[in-house]
């Protein structure tokens, strides 16, 4: 990363010094504010979080050092670590969302009449404020309201329909569904962007060869956008681990919908157990960092392209081939 800018043009040696001085001045002046904010709002709280996680404390008053006790509580209390299980619902939702996004992106990449409308309709939910989404779906799922009305109009009986947000067998599925509703379009737009960069000529050649849509998707589109797909899949894992808004706004964590962050928010800002909440935050952060390292490794090994457009795997295969040739 050191090789970031090219050396300046050769100038007269007398002015070279003043240019160097200027560079130094600009470097300091332009970086002082962002670095100050970064330290103040990220690294200072980060350090404090690790420190607090070893204390029994509230925001004010005395604090008592208790060693690893908070971390033990994170894993043993019945309301904390099991809450992470709920992120499985959101992960499943994310996988379905990605499949649907791919499906619709394939259709909308071509010149379909009315494509702009469908794109806009599917994407717009992404721009709506999380609180508004919460209300919209509270209203949508309330017994006898929008969803029930739609279902009764196609023949279901109201008394047979479950309470979507209170029935613990399905409420988390419904909440993950709102997440799919909100982010499907965003995912789709990103896939469309990636698909547009796949070479048009390849499709034409495939069409002449008589490939059908399914074959074209798997042998042309998919390889072209696999970077995006894999990265999104892994990102969705950390997203699911930190699921927060749907349960917070729609059910307020009741009826077994409290995800890890909803529980953490309560412990920190209602019960004021700052130490325990800090330990929770540290544990989750370690999980997320593990997932991210996995993502980096995967993307480096499989997908990172160098200047010539070859991935690490391809380059290695190429090197081997050359070595074999040289040996001959």
């Amino acid at each position: 990363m050191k090789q970031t800018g090219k050396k300046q043009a050769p100038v007269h040696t007398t002015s070279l010094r003043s240019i160097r001085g200027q560079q130094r001045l600009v470097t300091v002046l332009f970086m002082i504010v962002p670095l100050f904010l970064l330290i103040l709002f990220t690294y200072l709280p980060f350090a404090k979080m690790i420190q607090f996680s070893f204390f029994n404390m509230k925001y004010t008053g005395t604090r008592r050092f208790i060693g690893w006790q908070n971390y033990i509580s994170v894993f043993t209390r019945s309301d904390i670590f099991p809450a992470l299980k709920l992120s499985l619902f959101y992960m499943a939702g994310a996988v379905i969302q990605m499949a649907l996004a791919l499906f619709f992106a394939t259709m909308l990449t071509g010149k379909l009449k009315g494509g702009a409308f469908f794109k806009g309709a599917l994407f717009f939910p992404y721009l709506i404020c999380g609180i508004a989404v919460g209300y919209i779906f509270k209203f949508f799922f309330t017994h006898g309201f929008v969803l029930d009305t739609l279902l009764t109009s196609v023949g279901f009986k109201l008394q047979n329909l479950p309470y979507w947000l209170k029935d613990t067998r399905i409420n988390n599925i419904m909440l993950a569904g709102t997440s799919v509703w909100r982010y499907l379009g965003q995912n789709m737009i990103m896939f469309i962007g990636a698909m547009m960069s796949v070479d048009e000529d390849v499709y034409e050649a495939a069409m002449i060869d008589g490939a059908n849509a399914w074959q074209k998707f798997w042998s042309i589109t998919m390889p072209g956008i696999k970077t995006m797909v894999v990265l999104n899949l892994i990102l969705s894992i950390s997203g699911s681990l930190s699921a927060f808004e749907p349960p917070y706004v729609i059910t307020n964590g009741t009826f077994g919908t409290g995800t890890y962050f909803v529980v953490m928010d309560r412990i920190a800002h209602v019960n004021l157990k700052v130490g325990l909440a800090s330990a929770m935050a540290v544990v989750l952060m370690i999980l997320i960092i593990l997932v991210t390292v996995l993502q980096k490794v995967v993307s480096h090994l499989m997908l990172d392209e160098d200047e010539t457009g070859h991935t690490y795997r391809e380059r290695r295969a190429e090197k081997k081939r050359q070595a074999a040739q040289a040996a001959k």
Partner: protein
Amino acid sequence: MSPAEKKAEQKAEHPGRGRKIVIRILEYAALIFAAFWALIPVVSCVITAFKTPDEYANTNVMTLPKSWLYFTNFQGAWEKANMGLSFVNSFLILAVVLVCCILISSMLAFVLNRFKFRGNGLIRNLFLFASLVPGIAMQVTVYQIMYKLGLINSLPGYMLLLMGTDVISIYIFLQFFENLSVSLDESAILDGCTYFGVFFKILLPLLKPAIVTVLILKGVSTYNEYYMANLYLQDKTVYPVVSTCLYTFSGPMGTQYNFICAGVLITVIPILIIFLIFQKQVYRGLAAGAVKG
């Protein structure tokens, strides 16, 4: 040639033409089905917002209102949730945060991209690592810092917090600088321009596409931000913003959806207008923001 023969000939020329039409129909069916589910929650909200209390109490939720000119719910929501002040606060926050965020991140990206100095890579990695930390997890201790600095219930404090933590815009600018030739800077320096001049007079105007991208992405996330606004702007009578004022509906009016839906629509309309005008830029910005991963 009879129509049947014609068809047969066409079929010979384009094998699977009939199949193609069937596929087209299926495609449209799937898209219409998806668009239906994407829009129906919002549409139900529109229907409800125009209902009189009487209609709301006595008709089915999906029954259309008698009049589309019944604005009393909107007026009620506007007044009860103090939406006027919320919009003033939100737009003030937007203006300051966006201008500062664009200046801060483009300047940082300029230095990181153009100058070679010890610590360049380290600083990039510091920002990269910061993007891994989930925002909500951090607020437990950020709260304490804000409290000690006396920045609870302060608009400038909240603005500072929003502009300080934006890694995505830094990456968008970094990417853009990579495609701006260094020879631009060099020739300007040779002409006797200072680095300040190079940045403000030459490069900043060229950054326009990246600026639009950041404006849209950061603008939407700032306008919709709720968690920190709720936490740091606690005095909801003086410092309501659009998202927190919306949340006040969950109190005493928790089940009066005719008001709530009107409130939701009022907050969504500005976003809808911006989206309809800048559709292309929004899509492009999103794709650009995604590459950072």
